[in-house]
């Protein structure tokens, strides 16, 4: 029992430290976690009979080794940042939008249809491309918003759990759109289900010239979305109401916020960004609309990005970059080294786990009211109990066993060699 007690106290102390960590400290922790996970991953690679140095170097090279690889990383990161922000908006209000994937697909579809329908009416050329892309982006935002408004309204006015409805709507979007791109909207020339290609001029200018499927314009749109969402969250009534609802729904209602409307508008805002992600994907990456079943699962990866970013839109940028780098590094190792894919996936998983865990515990600690000397488990209160309590009953012996705890209150008490026996003495004879 005394051992369990020590473990419990150490854990509390560590959590409190994490909660109080500064941004710089957190970055150092994240880097240390990255290094530790690479070391552990290397050991696993070694145990599996491969050269760990090669694998780790290829992983890094694949992420940032050449301009092409950087572009690949940034392309993934662009999508992940957008999807992560979409998730973060909803999570911030305690609305669990698991349907970002579906909203992204619907947004991409709306973008593609708008561009394909409008293109014949405009004279080919750069100006037409600009108009097409602009209209396409707007349509994508609208499509995502509309598809998110549906589960939002169902939650607000019919008490339908958004987790369930958004997951179901993901399937519906994928299924219905597959039927469309495999039937009436199918490119007759193509073998796979896809629409016609967009005109060449309807796309983002590459600017860097290293990749056809990445453009700085796309990255700029993602970063602009981050800034806009951040500004809306912090300086507008809507953002304030949304955050208040997420923190304390009762306080939000007290302040005059209509909880139903907030749920719907939160979902709409989240769906707008998801739709934008879909629009950027079809315009920047593919240039047509394809079988939604083979869309990359940015909407789900965005959940991980958002959680790693603590649902903070600004945090989605580093989180998206990390996930993007891991994704392209993994792919590079897979193509170039004779190492099982599963092994690489496992190592990438380790990295995410290591980087995410401190942040996760930090949130757990804050939820438990640790840190800052606050809450039921606050250190100050206990220190008083240990230090200021003159009566040393048998039970007190339990607390000061031989193991040095990190808490000063424990350290102040002399080590008690009789600890175990005295703890036995505490049981009724």
């Amino acid at each position, binding site marked *: 029992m005394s051992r369990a007690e020590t473990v419990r106290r150490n854990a509390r102390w560590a959590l409190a430290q994490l909660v109080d960590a500064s941004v710089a400290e957190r970055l150092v922790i994240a880097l240390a976690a990255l290094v530790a996970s690479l070391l552990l991953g290397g050991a696993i690679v070694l145990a599996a009979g491969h050269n760990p140095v090669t694998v780790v170097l290829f992983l890094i090279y694949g992420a940032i080794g050449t301009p092409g690889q950087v572009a690949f990383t940034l392309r993934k990161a662009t999508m992940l940042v957008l999807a992560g922000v979409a998730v973060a908006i909803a999570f911030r209000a305690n609305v669990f939008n698991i349907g970002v994937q579906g909203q992204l697909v619907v947004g991409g579809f709306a973008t593609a249809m708008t561009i394909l329908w409008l293109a014949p009416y405009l004279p080919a050329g750069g100006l037409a491309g600009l108009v097409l892309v602009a209209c396409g982006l707007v349509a994508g935002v609208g499509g995502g918003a509309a598809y998110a408004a549906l589960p939002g309204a169902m939650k607000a006015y019919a008490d339908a759990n958004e987790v369930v409805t958004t997951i179901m709507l993901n399937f519906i979007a994928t299924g219905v759109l597959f039927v469309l791109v495999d039937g009436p909207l199918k490119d007759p020339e193509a073998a796979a289900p896809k629409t016609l290609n967009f005109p060449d001029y309807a796309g983002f200018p590459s600017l860097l010239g290293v990749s056809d499927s990445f453009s700085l314009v796309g990255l700029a749109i993602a970063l602009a979305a981050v800034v806009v969402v951040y500004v809306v969250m912090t*300086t507008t*009534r809507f953002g304030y109401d949304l955050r208040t609802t997420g923190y*304390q729904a009762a306080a939000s209602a007290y*302040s005059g916020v209509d909880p139903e409307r907030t749920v719907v508008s939160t979902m709409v805002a989240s769906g707008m960004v998801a739709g934008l992600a879909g629009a950027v994907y079809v315009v920047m990456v593919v240039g047509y609309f394809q079988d939604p079943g083979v869309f990359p699962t940015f909407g789900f990866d965005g959940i991980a990005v958002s959680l790693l970013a603590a649902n903070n839109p600004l945090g989605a940028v580093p989180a998206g970059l990390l996930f993007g780098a891991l994704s392209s590094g993994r792919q590079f190792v897979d193509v170039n080294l004779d190492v099982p894919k599963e092994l690489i996936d496992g190592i990438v998983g380790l990295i995410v786990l290591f980087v995410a865990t401190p942040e996760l515990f930090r949130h757990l600690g804050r939820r438990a009211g640790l840190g*800052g000397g606050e809450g039921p488990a606050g250190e100050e209160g206990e220190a*008083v*109990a240990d230090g*200021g309590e003159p009566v040393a009953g048998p039970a007190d012996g339990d607390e000061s066993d031989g193991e040095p705890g990190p808490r000063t209150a424990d350290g102040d008490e002399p080590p008690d060699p009789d600890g175990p026996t005295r703890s036995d003495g505490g049981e009724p004879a």
Partner: protein
Amino acid sequence: MSETTPPAVRLENITKRFGDVVANDGVDFTLERGSVHALVGENGAGKTTLMNVLYGLYEPDGGTVYVDGEPRSFDSPHDAIDAGVGMIHQHFMLVDTMTVAQNVVLGHEPTSRGLVDRGTARERIHELCDAYGFEVDDYLDARVEDVGVGLQQRVEIVKTLYRGADVLVLDEPTAVLTPQEVEGLYRVMDELTAEGHSMVFITHKLEEAMTAADEITVLRDGRAVGTVDADATSQAELAQLMVGRDVLFETERTAHEPGDPVLEVEGLHASDSRDVDRVRGVDFTVREGEVFGIAGVEGNGQSELIEAITGLRPVDEGTVRFGGEEITDASRRRRIEAGIAYVPEDRHERGIVLDYSLVENALLGNQTLSPFASGQLIDWRAAREHAERIVEAYDVQPPNADTHARSFSGGNQQKFIVGREIEHDPELIVAAQPTRGVDVGSIEFIHERLLELRDEDRAVLLVSSKLDEVKELSDRLAVIYEGEFTDVVDPETVTDRELGLLMTGRRPAAVADGEASAGADELERGTRADGGER
């Protein structure tokens, strides 16, 4: 320790703090073997905290827990159960989708060769049910979500007994039960005490304490203010103990002629979240320059009444008019904008966002009002100035508007909320328990502010379970009992004894009788028959 059998549980000088808040302040409590000891007090008086200390959920900052005369320190509920102390929480800790039998043995399953031994489990549950006459037996294979609340509670009790509990702590066990189920619970409690079990019965309903308990300890503001024999007390005495009668100071109060009606409530009905009718036809008017007080033991419909008035709860029946205009169905936002300020009783839930700084909290409820917002944009500078003004004028400590609300003591949070609501420049302020958990100096300050508002011809609706507070501040004082006003009295002339009787449901005529004849005391004593009817 004496030679005789030690009490089942003895808590000695228990102190428990949360940050600056003292939830238990040197509490002594003794539970005799084979008896029921009720722990009564207002919400927030420290009842549940005290029992969580006993149950190993909280570590006390001071004091000692004795079980069977042995000093003990529990690190977790698990240790407490091993020592024979079990707790039945207000919200049942059952797995809805598992059967009754599975729930009973959960975590303590008898095993044979590593597998759950269902036969033995059932046998042992049968034995328990036989011993205490529980009808749980017939439902062993029913899923918990399919059985009634009363039975679920019985399952909790059987589960606790199954784990070998000798001492049972029941936290507000009647809150979820129908009157018939309450009767059933009393019978179970009788049988358990007859078998030598001891029980702590946490409640804030006085008649229940008097009916079910042998002894009653009253907690107020974290201190044990008295332990009485259930047979030798009256509800009025308990009510007085609970709400306190120590008038600490006198606030200057000038005569003031009230003006036009501001708030008019007619035939108001409202129900709680479980659809139980809690406000049953209330009529009153609050006029300009008047403090209208509502006194009563907590849980008699006060919360639902003020929430219906402030727009947080739908009105089932009746009308609410504000400044002559009907607002019965108006949104909360419209009422705020019309000039109804509200100090909610539940500050951690509603009044303040704990993860926001005071600057962000200064905006709470003001987010559509000038100068804090123009259109959608928030003017954070105006919010900051507002927060700093409140911090300064209401002496919020520490005086730093950027600090998160969570870090402030309850009293300072409350001062901030009161300040924010008064600075709304309201036509009407609804103040519910405005000084709960607030230190003496701040109480005086808040009282003075409320009276200043009244002197500026604003209307004040004050709800408090502190008798001295409502008596001192109110120009007219209504007493609420089970969702109805028993009387509206002049706070200058009414006696505490009269108020005590009105608060327990005696109508004015009976109160007059009670004053006249000593025999009325007999009526007040709870008897088992009385308890069942309520």
